[in-house]
């Protein structure tokens, strides 16, 4: 693998971090402040984009920032997996920024400057994690993201928000200190390195009991609570107290996606497929994640709060990604990486819709949105596309990943997993379709006639773009497969 | 047993003294008595040093005619230093005690605690 030394990944990380300064300085002028946000978002996206040709050409970009401790570097490496994640996140940040502006202005939110600062910070550290060259660097960004998103979740500054934010902090910080950190240290101690390498870093594992690796692997999975695998999932519904754009950031762009991204990194780049097959950890993880898929879908059906239902849906969808990777088969891994993006676009559409509903009606419950489709046709169309995509109906992008998931399960010879996918699609339909039914078929609540209007344009446009992408990815899957092929080719080379 | 006591009586005395001092420090409520106990405690260690410097048939470590052996002078010197330390400790302790008396009007440990507990609603942790 040819390696190019360039500071581009550093710029991608720094651009939004630096943007914090002008955002803070122009706090008294909202228009100027928001233009900085947009500017940073666009700049970040183009920096990330500029690295695409290099990576798709089969090269990697490396940049060493500093030597933290003797032998341990803070370094960035851009490979296809990281770049893939970074592209998704940075593109969605542009949309979310526009959407946020519409949202906070429509609701006249307080502390808007803090909000945009933390938003920019979150994106920076997300990039950092995407481009991390080793476990150490990734751990730093993983923790930093928790801290940056805390003020966003506590944004409302009422009891409920503090409670949610506290649970969020305790879960994420607690698990990462208690499990992830020791796992990393054990890895470092055993492998003598923390640099990611496709296919695993442990090298010759002779003489070490497989149980040892199984335990470390379990520590990793438990430590990465951001991936929302049960039983470490309940921070996610609790974090729903945050403003809707933040939820979309949490669910589609940064936090949970960083979780599954780290899981993928650990599976593919730390342990490697062969080692995991040898110790049988893949099937074990798959079983856990399958339980999460089904159980959280069942819980989602019972939620009346829109965002809570979406949150449980996210938990279930995240486990798709984990299962896909845990299958340890080419198609499964392919599907799981693709699903990061596909789920991101589909789910962010749903959250954008939830925010639009909140701005328009100030309603949070499914039972309160009867008949709004007539008044908010565009928003509802966006929701319908997102929901159908997640259920996995062609011609929407969700179908593609689901197709690969099932193929992967068959390849790996784990037919029960394929059954879980099928059942879960059915459950998805069960919890999404009632919303569509309520909005389209039921009559509008009395007295709502003249109050309900479509959301502001700043919100509508991003929504349409995300929904549009969710459709387009079905027709142009090569956008995704270009990246996944490199990874899979590297993994199953021999 | 008797032999043991006879041979090591100096150390046993030191230990006894030490425990007496220790007891006073722990058990006495009066701060002055605590200081006295502390002094006894320290002094017992000084005696320990001095007695171990004794060499059988040794004489004072001064060069003089007819001396066969000398006692070890080093512990004496050390203890000279330690005595200075001990005196300073006592001085500081007494100075503190005077300040305590000025602040509380008593040098009984238990009474001071009562006063403190009364003032801060019983939240003095000890």
């Amino acid at each position: 693998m040819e390696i190019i030394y360039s500071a581009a990944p550093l710029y991608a990380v720094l651009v939004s971090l630096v943007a914090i300064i002008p955002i803070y300085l122009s706090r008294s002028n909202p228009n100027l402040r928001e233009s900085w946000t947009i500017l940073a978002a666009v700049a970040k996206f183009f920096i990330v984009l500029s690295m695409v040709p290099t990576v798709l050409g089969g090269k990697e970009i490396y940049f060493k920032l500093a030597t933290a401790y003797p032998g341990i570097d803070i370094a960035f490496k851009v490979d296809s997996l990281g770049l893939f994640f970074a592209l998704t996140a940075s593109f969605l940040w542009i949309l979310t920024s526009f959407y946020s502006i519409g949202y906070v202005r429509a609701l006249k939110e307080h502390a808007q400057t803090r909000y945009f600062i933390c938003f920019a910070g979150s994106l920076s550290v997300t990039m950092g994690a995407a481009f991390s060259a080793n476990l150490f660097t990734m751990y730093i960004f993983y923790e930093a993201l928790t801290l940056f998103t805390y003020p966003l979740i506590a944004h409302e500054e009422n009891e409920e928000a503090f409670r949610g934010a506290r649970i969020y902090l305790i879960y994420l910080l607690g698990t990462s200190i208690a499990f992830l950190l020791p796992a990393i240290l054990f890895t470092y101690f055993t492998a003598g390195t923390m640099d990611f390498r496709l296919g695993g870093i442990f090298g010759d594992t002779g003489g070490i009991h497989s149980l040892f690796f199984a335990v470390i692997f379990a520590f990793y999975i438990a430590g990465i609570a951001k991936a929302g695998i049960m039983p470490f999932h309940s921070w996610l519904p609790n974090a729903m107290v945050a403003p809707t754009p933040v939820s979309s950031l949490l669910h589609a762009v940064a936090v949970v996606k960083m979780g599954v991204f780290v899981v993928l990194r650990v599976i593919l780049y730390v342990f490697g497929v062969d080692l995991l097959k040898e110790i049988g950890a893949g099937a074990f993880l798959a079983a856990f994640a399958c339980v999460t898929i089904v159980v959280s879908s069942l819980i989602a059906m019972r939620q009346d709060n829109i965002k809570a239902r979406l949150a449980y849906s996210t938990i279930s969808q995240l486990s798709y990604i984990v299962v896909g990777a845990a299958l340890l088969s080419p198609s499964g891994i392919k599907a799981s990486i693709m699903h990061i993006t596909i789920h991101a676009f589909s789910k962010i559409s749903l959250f954008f819709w939830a925010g639009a509903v909140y701005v328009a009606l100030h309603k949070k419950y499914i039972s309160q949105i009867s008949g709004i489709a007539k008044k908010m046709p565009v928003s509802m169309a966006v929701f319908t596309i997102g929901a159908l995509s997640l259920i996995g109906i062609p011609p929407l992008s969700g179908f593609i990943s689901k197709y690969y998931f099932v193929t992967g399960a068959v390849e790996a010879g784990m037919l029960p997993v394929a059954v879980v996918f099928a059942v879960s699609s059915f459950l998805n339909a069960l919890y999404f379709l009632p919303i569509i039914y309520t909005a389209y078929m039921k009559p509008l609540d009395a007295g709502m006639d003249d109050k309900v209007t479509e959301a502001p344009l700043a919100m509508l446009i991003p929504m349409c773009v995300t929904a549009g992408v969710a459709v387009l990815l079905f027709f142009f899957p090569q956008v995704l497969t270009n990246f996944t092929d490199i990874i899979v080719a590297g993994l199953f080379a021999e | 047993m008797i032999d043991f006591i006879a041979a090591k009586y100096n150390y046993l005395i030191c230990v006894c003294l030490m425990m007496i001092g220790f007891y006073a420090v722990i058990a006495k409520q009066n701060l002055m008595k605590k200081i006295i106990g502390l002094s006894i405690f320290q002094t017992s260690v000084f005696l320990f040093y001095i007695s171990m410097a004794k060499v059988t048939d040794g004489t004072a470590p001064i060069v003089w005619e007819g001396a066969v052996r000398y006692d070890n002078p080093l512990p004496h010197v050390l203890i000279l230093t330690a005595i200075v330390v001990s005196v300073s400790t006592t001085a500081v302790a007494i100075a503190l005690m005077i300040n305590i008396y000025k602040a509380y009007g008593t040098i009984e440990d238990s009474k001071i605690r009562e006063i403190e507990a009364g003032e801060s609603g019983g939240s003095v942790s000890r």
Partner: protein
Amino acid sequence: MNLAVNFPALLVTVPLIFVPVIPLLGLINRKICWYAAVLAITASFAMIMTILAKVSTEGPISYHLGNWAPPIGIEYRIDMLNAFVLAVISFISLVSLLFGKELVEKEVPEYKHPAFYSVFILFVVGMTGMTVTGDLFNVYVFLEITSLSGYALIATSKKRYAPMASFNYLVIGTLAATFIVLGIGYLYMVTGTLNMADLAERIKPLNGSSVVLTAYALILMGILIKMAVFPLHLWLPDAYTYSPSAVSAAMAATSTKVGAYVLIRLMFSVFDIEYHVGSVPITGIIIFFASLSIVMGSVIAIAQTNIKKMLAYSSVGQIGYILLAAAMVNAEALTGGVMHIFSHALMKGGLFFVVGLIVYNIGSERISDFAGIGRRMPFTAAAFTIFSLSIIGIPLTVGFVSKWYLVLGAISSGHWYAIGVILLSSLLTAIYFGKVIFVMYFKGGHDDHGHAPAAKLSEPMGMVIPMAFVAFLCIYFGIFATFPVELAAKAAEAVLGGVTWK
């Protein structure tokens, strides 16, 4: 004759000369005292840095006081470990002096200032002496100098209970010192020497001797009291709570660390390490108490409503890390431990100063009264947050560095439960510091729209700058930790290898 050769002695004697001079200067003008004190510590600090540079390149220095050869004369011996500790002590003392000027003016009655600075210098002299010396009895003498000046410093506070807190500390401290001197006596009895290097040689054939074991037990006991390890910590919370903030900061940052240094020195350089790993499970016992200290210190800290008490109990927990590191007996852990001497000094010193400033402004030490500080004293609150994150052990802070090496050491020596203890305590630390940060930023002080009705409180430049500096160091050395880590690793190697010392 080259002056630099005499630096090992001068770094103690130069500040010592200032001790009687400062009160005299105070007769002329009380304002000069502070400058004189700064001058004294700066001189000592400069010498220590020269020595540190020299030791790290040329190896240990042995200095014979009065040109008397070691076993008879007193020897000052500096290897990487004490050079490192010396640098930390004098650096922190210097910063506390610079930082503490305003606090001292506020918390100590003015007529006491000359005496205060004089005793403060004596306190630092005692600690540097303890660290630099290679003679066991000298350690005792300097220990008592440190302690006595420490008692006096605590009592300078205006608080009513201060003399009582100091008195209790005096009683316990004197008992501890007497235990140590008794232990030294035992060692002298069987070996006939007080020089540590010489002692190490002569102890070897005595492996298994009950006298040596008793001596070890007595000295260990004394040091553990001085370090305030859990069941022996009772003097510490009151002492830190009732003393002036500048004193709490300096003491919390340095004095227990010196105790830790002496312990490490004795464990590794004097007593044969095989001895206490092998025949008697001394390291096992120390690990137990260290773990107990870490967990209990944190647990009790959670329950505190008084901020200074909370920090004090947190110190009890943090000192446990250093003890743990020493007892695990391997290079990584000891690197972590030595590193923690440095990082904890930075963080805890900083915390006490920040808290001192806040407490002075709002006139209360109750955590619940800190509401709205985040807006009323933005710089101070930000510094507090940085120090707290560091002490919790969030990556990119200096606290994380030492924890990293500690856990690595625990893994490599197979002390599994120590890993659990360290991580558990990180979580507990996160709880009690998180509570304070939450109160500062999210409680009170503003209405629903985020405007700050409460007036800003004063944050004098003289304090903000040192505070920002220390906070900056906390982060800087968290990211670019190579420099201190390499020094700490060399220090660990120096004592573990045993070659350089003997």
